[in-house]
C-alpha cells in the first residue's frame, strides 16, 4: 500500500505537541514555533500544561501540551483544533485526541505503548487507537524510543539522558513534515548546552534522525506547505504576554524617568512577570519577592510613596489579598500598577487555565467606594502597550491602575514588531515643583489629580494615609467632606477618559450583529468575525481594552447596531457592567467557563444562529 507523500497546501496549520510533563513538550513546541517565526510565518501559540508540577508519570493528569497555529496571513489564535497531534505516550493520545480535527493526523511513539503505560493511562485494551475511536484519523505510529536509542548507540550516554532526547526526534520529524529547516534548533542547542558538548552532539543527532526518518518513510505522512506570511516590514521577535507585560513596564520606567520597583509573590500564571523583571538588574529594576501577596503590594506602595514607578503582579487569589492595600492606594492617591493575570476561579480554581472572571473583582472588589482605572490587554504582544499605558495613566493621574491579562495571553506568544523607544508616548509624572504652594491633597482643578512629592524632597514634608482627610491633608471625619472626597476620587478616575482612545468597529457599520468582547478573547472574536464576513455575513466587532473608564464613543457605537452580543470567558461580568453603565441597550451574551479559550467554530455557529433568529 505504499503511496507517495502527499503534499497538502494550506493557509493555516495547527500542530499540537503532547506528552508527559517530563517529556519536554513546552520546549519542543517553543523551538518549533520560533523556527516558524524565523522562517517568516505569523504564529500564535498556547501552552496547555497541568497544574501539578510532577503529576505521576504516564498518567492523564501529567499530560502537558503545546499548540501552535501558523499561517501565511495574520494569525490571531492558536487554532481551535490541531491538524497534527504529536503524542509521546498513550496518556497523551487519550487526553489530547479530542483536540484534533476529525480526520487529522496523529503521530505517536509506538514504543511507548507498553503494558505499564497503557495501564497508567487507564486503557482497558492494548489498542489506544480503537479505544479512543480514532480509526478515521490518519494514524502514524513511529518507533521514536527505539530510533532515538539507535541514533545514540555509539555515544557514551546513560539510558536516562537518551530517553530525555526523544523530544528532539519528534521535533526533527515535525520539521520535515512542515518543510522547515532544523538549523535554528541546532543553534539553540549549541547555545543552551555550550558547556556540555556530549549533550549537544546527542540532541543534534536525534534531531537529524527524526528529520531523516520523515524523509525516508515519506509514505506515511502528508507533508504540509504553508507559505510565508505577508507581514508588515520591520524587525520582529517572538514574545509572550508575561514578558511583554514586564517589558512594557520597563519601557514606562525608562520613559518617565522613575525607577521601577516590583513587589510581588510567585503565583501561577503570573510568576513569569516577577521573573522577567528580576532578571533586569542591568536596567536597575528593584524586584522584591515578598513574604506574601499583601507584602507584595505593600512594599510596592512604599516604593510609590518614595517616588518609584511601583508595580505588583498577581493572579486572582492574590488580587483578593491585595484588595485592602489597593484601597489604601486609592485613598492616599498614590500611583501603582497592579497586574492581574487571570486564571480559572474561584478559590484556587484552575491555576493553569485561562478565564476572564476577575473583572468584577478588579472593578469593585474592595471595601468602600474605591474606584480604580481598569485596562485589559488583548493579545500576547499588546500586553506591552497596555502595561505601558497603565503606568502612564498611574503616573500622570496619581491613581492605581489594574491591568488585566489572562493565562492565555500570558503564556501564548506571537511575533511582534519591535517598537523604538523614541516612538513611545511621553510620560510626565506629576512631581511637585514648588514647596511653597505644595499641599498633599491640593489638585489640578481639571484632572483632579494631586501632586507627587516624596521623602528626600526638601520642603515637601507631608503626611498621607488611609483615613479620610480634607483638602489640606488633615484627618477629617466631617460628613460633607467625605462626600466631597468620594466624588473627587470617582471623578478623577472618570477624567482618565481623555487618555482613552475611541473603541473601533471592525467590520460593517451597518451589520446585523455587533459582537462585543474585551481583553484576551480578541484573537478568537476577530477571527470568527473575519471568517463570517468572508462568507458574506454582515457582522462587526467592538473589542474593549479600556474597561474603566469606557471609551467616550461607546454609546455612539452601540447605538448603530440592532443586536449586540457580549462574549466573555465568565458568566457575564462585562455584560452586567455594560447594563449598569449603558442600560439603554439590550445585550445578548455568550459565555464560557471551561478554562479554555473560545473556539472560532463555536463562535461562528452562535453568531449565525443569532443573525438567523
Amino acid at each position: 500500500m505504499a503511496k507517495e507523500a502527499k503534499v497538502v497546501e494550506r493557509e493555516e496549520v495547527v500542530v499540537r505537541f503532547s506528552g508527559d510533563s517530563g517529556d519536554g513538550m513546552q520546549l519542543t513546541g517553543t523551538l518549533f514555533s520560533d523556527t516558524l517565526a524565523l522562517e517568516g510565518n505569523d504564529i500564535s501559540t498556547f501552552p496547555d500544561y497541568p497544574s501539578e508540577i510532577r503529576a505521576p508519570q504516564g498518567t492523564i493528569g501529567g499530560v502537558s501540551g503545546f499548540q501552535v497555529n501558523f499561517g501565511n496571513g495574520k494569525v490571531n489564535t492558536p487554532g481551535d483544533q490541531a491538524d497534527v497531534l504529536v503524542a509521546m505516550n498513550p496518556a497523551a493520545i487519550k487526553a489530547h485526541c479530542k483536540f484534533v480535527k476529525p480526520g487529522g493526523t496523529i503521530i505517536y511513539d509506538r514504543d511507548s505503548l507498553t503494558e505499564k503505560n497503557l495501564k497508567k493511562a487507564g486503557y482497558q485494551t492494548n489498542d489506544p487507537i480503537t479505544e479512543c475511536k480514532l480509526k478515521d484519523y490518519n494514524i502514524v505510529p513511529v518507533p521514536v524510543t527505539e530510533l532515538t536509542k539507535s541514533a545514540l548507540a555509539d555515544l557514551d550516554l546513560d539510558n536516562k539522558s537518551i530517553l530525555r532526547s526523544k523530544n528532539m526526534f519528534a521535533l526533527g520529524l515535525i520539521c520535515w513534515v512542515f518543510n522547515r529547516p532544523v538549523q535554528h534548533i541546532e543553534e539553540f542547542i549549541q547555545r543552551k548546552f555550550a558547556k556540555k558538548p556530549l549533550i549537544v552532539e546527542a540532541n543534534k543527532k536525534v534531531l537529524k534522525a527524526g528529520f531523516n526518518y520523515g524523509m525516508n518513510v515519506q509514505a506515511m505522512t502528508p507533508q504540509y506547505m504553508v507559505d510565508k506570511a505577508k507581514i508588515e516590514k520591520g524587525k520582529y521577535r517572538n514574545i509572550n504576554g508575561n514578558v511583554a507585560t514586564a517589558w512594557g513596564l520597563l519601557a514606562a520606567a525608562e520613559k518617565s524617568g522613575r525607577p521601577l520597583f516590583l513587589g510581588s509573590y510567585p503565583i501561577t500564571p503570573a510568576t513569569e512577570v516577577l521573573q522577567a523583571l528580576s532578571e533586569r538588574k542591568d536596567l536597575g529594576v528593584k524586584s522584591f519577592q515578598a513574604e506574601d501577596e499583601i507584602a507584595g503590594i505593600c512594599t510596592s506602595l512604599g516604593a510609590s510613596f518614595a517616588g518609584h514607578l511601583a508595580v505588583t503582579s498577581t493572579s486572582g487569589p492574590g488580587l483578593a489579598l491585595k484588595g485592602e492595600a489597593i484601597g489604601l492606594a486609592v485613598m492616599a492617591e498614590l500611583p501603582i500598577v497592579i497586574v492581574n493575570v487571570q486564571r480559572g476561579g474561584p478559590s484556587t480554581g484552575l491555576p493553569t487555565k485561562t478565564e476572564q472572571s476577575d473583572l468584577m473583582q478588579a472593578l469593585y472588589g474592595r471595601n468602600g467606594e474605591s474606584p480604580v482605572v481598569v485596562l485589559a490587554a488583548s493579545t500576547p504582544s499588546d500586553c506591552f502597550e497596555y502595561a505601558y499605558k497603565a503606568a502612564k495613566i498611574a503616573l500622570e493621574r496619581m491613581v492605581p491602575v489594574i491591568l488585566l491579562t489572562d493565562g492565555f495571553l500570558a503564556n501564548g506568544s506571537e511575533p511582534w514588531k519591535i517598537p523604538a523607544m523614541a516612538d513611545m508616548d511621553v510620560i510626565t509624572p506629576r512631581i511637585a515643583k514648588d514647596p511653597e504652594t505644595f499641599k498633599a491633597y491640593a489638585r489640578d482643578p481639571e484632572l483632579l489629580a494631586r501632586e507627587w512629592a516624596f521623602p528626600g524632597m526638601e520642603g515637601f514634608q507631608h503626611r498621607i494615609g488611609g483615613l479620610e482627610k480634607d483638602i489640606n491633608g488633615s484627618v477629617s471625619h466631617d460628613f460633607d467632606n467625605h462626600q466631597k472626597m468620594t466624588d473627587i476620587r470617582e471623578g478623577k478616575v472618570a477624567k482618565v477618559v481623555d487618555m482613552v482612545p475611541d473603541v473601533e468597529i471592525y467590520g460593517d457599520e451597518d451589520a446585523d450583529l455587533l459582537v462585543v468582547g474585551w481583553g484576551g478573547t480578541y484573537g478568537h472574536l476577530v477571527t470568527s468575525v473575519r471568517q463570517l464576513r468572508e462568507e458574506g455575513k454582515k457582522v462587526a466587532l467592538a473589542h474593549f481594552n479600556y474597561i474603566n473608564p469606557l471609551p467616550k464613543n461607546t454609546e455612539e457605537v452601540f447605538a448603530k447596531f440592532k443586536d449586540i452580543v457580549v462574549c466573555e470567558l465568565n458568566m457575564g461580568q462585562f455584560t452586567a457592567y455594560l447594563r449598569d453603565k449603558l442600560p439603554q441597550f439590550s445585550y445578548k451574551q455568550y459565555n464560557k467557563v471551561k478554562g479554555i479559550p473560545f473556539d472560532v467554530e463555536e463562535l461562528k455557529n452562535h453568531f449565525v444562529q443569532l443573525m438567523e433568529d
Partner: protein
Amino acid sequence: MAENVTYTLKDFKSSNEVRWCPGCGDHAVMNAIQKAMATLGKKHEDYAVVSGIGCSSRFPYYMSTFGFHTIHGRAAAIASGVKSANPNLSVWQISGDGDALAIGGNHFIHTVRRNIDLNIILFNNRIYGLTKGQYSPTSERGKVTKTSPFGTIEEPFNPGNLVLGARGTFFARSIDSNVKHSQEVCTAAAKHKGTSVVEVLQNCVIFNHGAYNDINDPKTRADRQIFLKHGEKMLFGANNEKGLVWENGDLKAVVVGENGYTIDDVLVHDAKTESMNLHHALIEMALPSLPVAFGVIRDVEAPFYDEEMEKQIAHVQETRKITCMDDLLNSGDTWEVE
C-alpha cells in the same frame, strides 16, 4: 551618613493636635524619638515615618517629617518598600503589639529576617487600645479583657524572642517613662545598619493601666530593672550592688560580696556577639527571680537588604550588555521582514 545638620525636638513636631489620652505612654516615647532624630545629623526631609493601625500608629500625623499612616499590620512591608526604594532615607516604623505581632506578624518576622535597615519602634502596651480593650498577642496568660471575660488561655509572645527566631541583628528594650533611656536606645537603633527592633513597654492608662507597675514602681524598680550596656558589667540595684552571673546553664541574680560572689563573677554585656544564647537568656529574664532587661541587648553587624540590593544592581551593571530598553527589545532572537 552624618550630614552635619542639627535640629531641635520642636523641628519634628507637627501642628496637628496630639490626640492620645492624657497620661498615655505614647507622648513620652514620641518625645524621645523626636529628640533622637534631632541629634542624628540626618536631614529633616530624609526622615520617613510609617505606621500601621492602632493608637500609637497615629504617630506620623504628629510629626513634621514625611509620614505614611497605612493599614493594619502592613507597616513593616510598606516601610520595607520605602527603604528599599531609597536607602538614603532614615525610615522609622511605628507599630503596636497588635499591629506588629498579630495581624502583621508575618511581615514583622520577614522584615527582621531580611535585615532591612529600618527602625521599628514597637509600642507594647499588651492590649488593644484603639478598639477599646481586647487582649493582644503580648497579653499575659489569664488576662481578663472584654474578649476574654474568663481570662485568656494562650501564651503571649516575647517580642525579643521573635527577633532572635528571625535571626535579627538588633533588639533593645525601653520603657515609656524613662525618656532619656528611650532616646539613647532609639539613637542606637538608628545607627545600627539592619532592622532595629526597639520594644518600648508602654502604659495604656485607659485599658491596661499599671501593666508594668511591678517592673516600674519607683520604690522597687532599681531592683527590678537592669540597664545593659555593651562592654559593661551587668549590675543593678540602687547602688549597683547586684549583678548577673552565669550558673548552671542560666542567669542568676546575686548580691556582689555575698555568698562568695565577687565583682569578677558578674558578667560583662556583649551586645555584639553573634551568639544568641546569652541574648536569649537576657530577653527572657522576668520577675520575680530576675530583673527585666533594658537597653541594647543585641547589636550585631550583618549584610543588610537595602544595601545588598543596591550592590547587586551595581555589580550586574558593571558588565551589562543591555544598557537601555532599545537594547533589550532588540536582544536575543530577532528577524527582519523585508
